[in-house]
């Protein structure tokens, strides 16, 4: 395919979804939600099959229902806008262009769960968005007042730690402490911010919630596959003919994805950012982009044959070695050992057998780390070290 043909096909494929960046009448949408009532909102979100778009993929409707069932004086809705996964930049554009829909999604969650307080936890690097977001929130508050909806949104800025994208670390950070993940249970829906039931949803998830109420659960459900319903906003980068942000159906094969975006020489795709899986060319056909296959929070990094997979893995490990919060042993020390380990192998200080040792360590990290950060370091490590063993060793 020529680049032009790719663009044409991409337009067609995007045309089937078109949800996130579509203009909608949020006032009408909220009026509709009010008339639906709490239970129906939750049912619609549940039956849409929507799963969290931040990467972990927890069913959104179930999360809302769990929070709704809690009896508490206060409840919170937090929009997780701490978009820190390397290679992910879609929430930024959503917040630039569709902040009002993000707010609407939060208000829907508030309606569904009984929360009255909303917080947007904004990545430190996105502080340039503060003014425009504040304006949108002011405008939105006026709308809420007209609708007599008792809900309020404030913005809180992060301080630059990757781990604060993890929901309990985010909550710790909001409470004024070091961003360190908590023990779970209790989960935030039971005991979250200041000990009150809290729903933490990704920016994109909230906008999809708004669109599900706008267009109905069926409109969402008919997109994608049985296990991965709906659309997804992808951040495409790397050695790509076409780069940028695209909303596509979930469940497509990686081969078709690479056909659309690749430069014809794609040797691997890192699906899901630094904490995701690296898929080599020989597995493009069999890899489904979705929860039943290789899930992604949106990041799709393409690498062509000019890239050294050792350097790519080294780069990810450096990132994790620095961004681990440092509290738990497997993640804090494990990341250092993996990094130093591949360096030692490269320099010949450790033999090839040591890579097996590191793979075992990575598996331990995936089951013993306290939070998703430490657990997911194994994803890039194992997928790169196994699929590109020679590049790591020699």
């Amino acid at each position, binding site marked *: 395919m020529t680049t032009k043909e790719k663009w044409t096909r991409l337009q067609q494929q995007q045309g089937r979804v078109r949800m996130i960046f579509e203009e909608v009448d949020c006032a009408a949408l909220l009026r509709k939600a009010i008339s639906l009532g709490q239970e129906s909102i939750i049912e619609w979100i549940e039956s849409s099959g929507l799963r969290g778009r931040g990467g972990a993929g927890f069913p959104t409707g179930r999360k809302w229902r769990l929070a709704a069932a809690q009896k508490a004086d206060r409840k919170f809705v937090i929009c997780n806008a701490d978009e820190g996964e390397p290679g992910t930049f879609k929430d930024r554009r959503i917040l630039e262009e569709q902040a009002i829909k993000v707010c609407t999604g939060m208000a829907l969650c508030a309606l569904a769960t009984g929360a009255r307080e909303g917080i947007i936890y904004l990545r430190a690097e996105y502080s340039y968005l503060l003014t425009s977001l504040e304006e949108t929130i002011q405008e939105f508050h006026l709308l809420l007042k007209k609708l007599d909806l008792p809900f309020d949104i404030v913005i809180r800025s992060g301080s630059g*730690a990757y*781990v604060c994208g993890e929901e309990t670390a985010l909550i710790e950070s909001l409470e004024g402490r*070091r961003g*360190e993940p908590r*023990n779970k*249970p209790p989960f935030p829906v039971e005991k979250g911010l200041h000990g009150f039931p809290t729903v933490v949803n990704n920016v994109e998830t909230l906008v999809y919630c708004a669109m599900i109420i706008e267009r109905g659960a069926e409109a969402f459900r008919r997109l994608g596959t049985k296990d991965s319903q709906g659309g997804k906003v992808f951040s495409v980068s790397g050695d790509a003919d076409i780069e940028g942000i695209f909303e596509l159906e979930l469940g497509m094969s990686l081969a078709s994805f690479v056909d659309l975006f690749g430069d014809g020489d794609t040797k691997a795709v890192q699906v899901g950012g630094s904490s995701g899986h690296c898929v080599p060319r020989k597995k493009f056909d069999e890899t489904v982009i979705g929860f039943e296959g290789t899930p992604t929070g949106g990041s799709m990094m393409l690498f062509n044959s000019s890239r050294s997979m050792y350097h790519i893995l080294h780069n990810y490990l450096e990132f*994790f*070695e*620095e*961004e*681990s*919060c*440092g*509290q*738990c*042993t*497997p993640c*804090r*020390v*494990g*990341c*250092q*050992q993996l990094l*130093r*380990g591949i360096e*030692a192998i490269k320099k010949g200080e*450790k033999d090839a057998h040591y890579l097996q*040792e590191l793979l*075992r*360590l990575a598996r*331990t990290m*995936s*089951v*013993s*780390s*306290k939070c998703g950060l430490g*657990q997911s370091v194994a994803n890039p490590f194992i997928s790169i070290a196994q699929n590109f063993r020679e590049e790591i060793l020699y």
Partner: protein
Amino acid sequence: MIRIIMNGSPMEVEEGTRVLAAAQDAGVRIPTLCYHKDLCVAGNCRVCLVEVEGQRALQAACALPVSEGMTIRTNSAAVRAARKHVIELLLSEHRVDCLKCARNGNCELQNLAEEYRVEEREFIDLGLERSLDRSSPSIEKDDSKCIRCQRCVRTCTELQRISALTVAHKGSKMRVDTFFGNPLGDVVCSNCGQCVSRCPTGALVERSSIDSVWSALDNPKLHVVVQTAPAVRVSIGEELGCEPGKRATGQMVTALRRLGFDKVFDTDFTADLTIIEEGHELLRRLKAKLLDHDENTVLPMFTSCSPGWVKFLEHQFPEHLENLSTCKSPQQMFGALAKTWYASQAQVDPENVVVVSIMPCTAKKFEADRPEMRSVGARPDVDHVLTTRELARMIRQSGFDFGKLEEQAYDTLLGTSTGAGVIFGATGGVMEAALRTAYEVVTGRPVPFRNLEILPVRGMEGIREAVIPIEGCLPEWSFLEGVDLRIAITHGLANAWELIEGIKAGRLSYHFIEVMACPGGCLGGGGQPIPTDMEIRLERMAAIYEEDRQMPLRKSHENPDVQRLYEEFLKEPLGEKSHELLHTHYTAR
């Protein structure tokens, strides 16, 4: 009740129980490092991992509450493999220097390494350089031995509300540090040493004075006297192989003599003296306030025996320094008297008198070093302070079989004491001792409690209060007739903070408050044997009160040597000599 299956056996446990405790009930010990009974659960070391059916990841037993039908395996292949990995990772980050470490033989990491036979170290040594902070006279900190369990941080924050130690940086650079990395000697640390008591490794230890004490003992020109704090006699045995709560006063005295001390004296003696001075100070303040309506007199009066508490107040609430009793602590009263009155009585040159104290405390090292604590010349009144742990080490070095030592008595002059002196070692003890004396001074009658045991002030509750009605006063104290003396006792600086906040907000009002920096009072001090937990502290407490019951004299003012001291030297409580030697002042920090 919740039904669970632990290693194949069904059992019932109460809702809310954590897997760690449930396993313990089932007779299974799950190894831990970051877990400590006194502290909130962190779940960060990941040593206590267990397998829970249906969960992809292993779970931290210390943090995970049981749920209905939960099937737990504490010793599966996956658990053993992960645990061993975690221990190996910790060792790769730890400067393994066991033979030279103060905690060799009493190190939780070492025990685990032994238990899991971590023989060949697979992982790369992360090569932490030794980074010793010896700026504090009480505590030394070596980051290269730190396993980042944050027990010290939780201790400093939760129990003491000081946060001198906190977590800094992230990832591989994450470490336990002070504010802006300032030296430990320059920060708000109270020197209480509670972090030392809870450090699983040798990252935090006391500054040792053992070598200085040996060289003093080895010098024939010097006259070396030793004083032993009340709480040491009920804990020294623990460090030498006895069960917690063992009373070993007589053996300890014998051991000290055998170590070569010229005189073995008792801090209990100056504890009795403190009661006389402090009791009179309280009465004087009450008189000034209630009778003379003197606006410059401040109440409540705070006790000043605990140097951790004193430094805490100097940092955190300098506006309340006037509330602190001006009395020096028993340790410092002893030091001042040893180099003046005792030196003249024993006819030794004060220049040649060396005072060593055995304390359950690390803050006492700082206190001895304070510039105010120099009565004779430029040398400190107390030359060297050893913790209970350091004394035990000296006894071990000497090769005595502690259990077989005969029981000997203290030397007289500065060694006679009463039960009131010994209870200084437990929270509430100073208050009880003060009441035994002050009540009798004012009314001419003993305190109206059976067997002199003032039970309302005893116990482990963080803040305790009582009202003592004063009736039937002697004529000179008639202004106290009908007064309800309101008192409070607190221990652990987080509790002290809460109490002061209550007073500041006007919610609480007292005449006299006893504050001890450490949980349980001195018996839970930062220089005491490791480990510590509530059960151990209760055993030590029971031993303290038993010690009191066994004493022929139970009231400070009945101490014959204290009486003689007043007759021959001090003349009167709060007199000129007392002012010079036994009282001090404080500095806002």
